[in-house]
C-alpha cells in the first residue's frame, strides 16, 4: 500500500468529482421527484463514498483481503437495515399495523 504513490492529478480529479457530486445532489434535491429523491440522493452519496474508499483510502491498490473486509462491512450493514426493514415494510400486508 505504501508502494503505491497516487499522482496528484488523480487526487485533484477525485476532489473535483466529489465537489461536483455535492453540488449535483443539492440541485436535484430542489426538484420534486417524489420517492425518487431519496433514491437519487443515496445513490450519489454512495458514488461519493466509493470514490473516497477507492482512491483516497487506496482500496483500489490494496490487497484482496482489504477489499473483502470492506465488502463484509457493507454487506452486514445492509443485512441490519434490510432484514429489519423487511419487518416494517411487510406489516401493511397483514391487515393491521
Amino acid at each position, binding site marked *: 500500500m505504501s508502494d503505491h504513490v497516487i499522482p496528484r492529478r488523480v487526487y485533484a480529479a477525485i476532489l473535483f468529482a466529489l465537489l461536483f457530486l*455535492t453540488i449535483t445532489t443539492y440541485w436535484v434535491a430542489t426538484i420534486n421527484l417524489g420517492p425518487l429523491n431519496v433514491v437519487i440522493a443515496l445513490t450519489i452519496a454512495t458514488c461519493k463514498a466509493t470514490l*473516497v474508499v477507492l482512491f483516497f483510502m487506496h482500496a483500489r491498490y490494496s490487497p484482496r483481503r482489504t477489499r473483502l473486509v470492506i465488502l463484509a462491512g457493507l454487506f452486514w450493514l445492509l443485512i*441490519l437495515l434490510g432484514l429489519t426493514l423487511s419487518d416494517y415494510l411487510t406489516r401493511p400486508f397483514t391487515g393491521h399495523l
Partner: protein
Amino acid sequence: MERSGELFGQFQNLDQQREAASLGMWVFLVTEVMFFGGLFLAYAINRFTYPAVFAMASRQLDVHLGALNTCVLIVSSFTMAMAVRSSQTGKKKQLIVFLILTLLLGGVFLGIKYAEYAAKFHHHLVPGRAFRFPEANGDVGIVAHAQLYFSLYFGLTGLHALHMIVGAGLLIWLLTQALRGRFTPAYNTPVEICGLYWHFVDIIWIFLFPLLYLIDLHR
C-alpha cells in the same frame, strides 16, 4: 516490547507490521460502520414511519451551512490524502503543511457545527423538556415526531462530531511526530492509518448531509 528502529517486537519485519496496522484499522472502521449503522437504522425506520414530519423538521436546518460543511470535509479528505502522499514520498515540509490544512478544515467544520447547535438551542429544538415546535400548530403527535427527528439529528451529528474531535487529536499527534521527522517512505504507517480514519469520518458525513438536510427542499 523491544523496538529496533520502528519495528515492534512481535513482528518479524516492517512489511508485516504495516499490513497488520492497515488491516487493523480497516477492521476497526467496519466496527464503526456497524456502530453508526444502528443509528442509521433508527433513522430509516422513523423516517419511513413519519415522512411528512421529517420533511417539516429538516427544513429547520440551514442547508447552506450543511452544504458548506460537506465541501469543507471533502477538501479536508483531499488534504489528508495529500498528506499521506507526502509521507510516502518523504516530503516532510509538505506533510506538515497538509496535516495543518486538514486540521484547520476540521476546525472549520466543528466551528460551523457549533454555530448550528447554538442556533438549535436558541430555537428550542433540542429534545427534552424545552423542546418547542411551533410549525406543528399544536398537534402533539407532530411535536413528538419532530422531537424524534431532532434526537436523530443530534445523535448522528453529535456522534460524528465526537469522531471528528478524536480525528483532530490524531492529527495533532501526527503533527508532533512529523515535526520530529519520524516519518519516512519506509515508515509512514501511522499517517496512513490515521488517514483511513479521517476519510471514514468524511464518508459518514457524506451520507448524513442528504439524509438530514436534503429531505425536502422543494417546497
